[in-house]
């Protein structure tokens, strides 16, 4: 068997499950996984085990292609060690691991027979893929984003603290009121609703720093240009001109942040809510 085919086949071990699946599964991760992610642990132990196993797997591949069986064996043994260690981390996931298959991979490498290695690698790889198909995405969503649940925002119009969802609702309602009043030609009420919307968007920016310590992330969505557009919207509204075209133009820019921010944060926030994380 040529080198190329071997690397391709070993790569397939990982791609396998995800290319075959035609639907996305999001299973609620087991509770004891909490122990390996923030806030309980800042070391991301589970994820580093994944990286380790994947690296050692590649170590076998790399060395067999170089016909260095000695080093290939070394990484097969390391892989087995990590695999067994990982299988003990989350009791609820015990069944997904088959330590015997890791042992068989070591033996296959010892036999220096490429076909045996391939078969054993695929068998072991399947255990990886099965778990990934069910949990990889949900774990990403549940653990890689700090929760919006614990964040309270103070509404700048009613001076009340509320959660993100409620705040979004209030902000959206003032946006809708602005549009309706504008279309009805009610300038005064449009100005009032509009200013409230602007204040609510402004106060929303204050929330970003509860998670982001780098200004760059915040600026990417609500930067200088965005804020000065918001100022302009405020000014046009309070000038009382009721210029629909102008207001709708500025609104389009003002609401661009909503979509951008939702693209990044909404899916994880909703999934977390469903998992009650």
């Amino acid at each position, binding site marked *: 068997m040529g080198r190329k085919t071997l690397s391709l086949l070993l790569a397939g071990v990982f791609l396998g499950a995800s290319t075959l699946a035609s639907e996305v599964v999001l299973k609620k991760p087991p509770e004891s996984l909490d122990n390996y992610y923030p806030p309980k642990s800042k070391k991301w132990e589970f994820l580093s085990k994944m990286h380790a196993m994947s690296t050692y797997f590649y170590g076998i591949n790399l060395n067999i292609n170089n016909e260095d069986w000695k080093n290939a064996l070394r990484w097969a043994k390391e892989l087995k060690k990590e695999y067994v260690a990982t299988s003990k981390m989350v009791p609820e996931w015990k069944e997904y691991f088959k330590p015997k298959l890791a042992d068989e991979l070591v033996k296959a490498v010892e036999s220096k027979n490429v076909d045996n290695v391939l078969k054993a690698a695929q068998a072991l790889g399947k255990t990886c893929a099965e778990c990934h198909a069910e949990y990889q995405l949900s774990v990403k969503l549940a653990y890689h984003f700090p929760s919006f649940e614990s964040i309270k925002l103070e509404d700048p119009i009613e001076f009340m603290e509320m959660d993100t969802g409620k705040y979004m609702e209030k902000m959206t309602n003032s946006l809708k009121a602005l549009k309706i009043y504008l279309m009805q030609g009610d300038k005064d009420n449009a100005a009032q609703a509009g200013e409230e919307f602007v204040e609510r968007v402004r106060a929303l920016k*204050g929330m970003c720093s509860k998670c982001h310590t780098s200004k760059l992330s915040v600026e990417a969505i609500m930067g200088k240009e965005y804020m000065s557009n918001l100022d302009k919207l405020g000014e046009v509204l309070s000038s009382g001109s009721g210029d629909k075209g102008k207001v709708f133009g500025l609104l389009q820019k003002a609401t661009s942040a909503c979509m951008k921010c939702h693209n990044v944060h909404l899916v994880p926030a909703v999934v977390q809510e469903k998992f009650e994380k």
Partner: protein
Amino acid sequence: MRAFLIPVLFSLTLLGCGPFEEVFVEKDLLERPQAKRCSDCHADIYKEWKESRHALAWKSESYRRESENYTKTKCLACHAPHQVDPEKKPKLRAEFKDDGVACVACHFKEETGAMHGPLKVWSPPHPSKQDLSYTKSSFCAGCHRETYKEWKLAKSSKSCQDCHMKSLGKKDLIQKFPFYLFHRAKPRHSHRFTSLIASEEDIKVWFEGGRLYLENVGVPHNLPTADQGDPRLYLIARIAYKDGKVRTLRRMFSPQAENALAPGRPVGITITNAEGVSSIKIKLLRKLSWKKEKELILSREIHGEGLPGQVRRGNPEGGEGVGKDSEG
């Protein structure tokens, strides 16, 4: 007592200056002790500092929570600094972090091995060095970075210390017997680092062209100001219309929302149906980052098109009574 002792103690100094100084040097003072150690002599200053937010900079519950239990490394240096130098962001200190922003960090300099301060002093227990940077705003700038930038834009003739470390007149720097007998009273500044509270005169309020305006005319930095905290200013305007209707308008200003009142920059708020307005009752309150309660800054009534009404100071609804100074 004092009069009797002085001749006795002075006779000691006749034994020669060298041995005298050595007798009184207390070496551990230069080995970064806790703030409590300084209170052995600087008892009054210690008492003031102990009451200040600087003393709580590390222990503060809200800070502990927001720094994610001291794990966000970006957050640590300014809350437990090693050494303070003008306009430089400090480094994190290794020892006694619970002391927060403490005496040694602000006064002891590694380069000279001495206590730096604003005065020329003779201090046998530890070397001292006069350093006029202590009287300037730039001394605070390494940590209060945003506030310092705002202050520079405001071009105020007053320094941070002029307002937040008020002069206490001439007083003893040390209280320890018998040392204080050798020292004359010197200019002292409050180490209470009080937050202050804006006065009625600091804020101009008027109604013009259908808009209600607010302007910070007295505080030479944004109102409120912060680097990391989340202090707020609340406006409550009760608008009475000629037809008997009443409407309440509320606004919140904060550094985090980037709408704090910058010095000399009026902020206007549209009042709907402005021609029908008969009067506007205004209340302005503030909430410091670390405090739950809102405190009243001003309460004022405006009649008709910008006609100034009577000015008075009262209690905020359901809030606390306040004095001129947040120390109470």
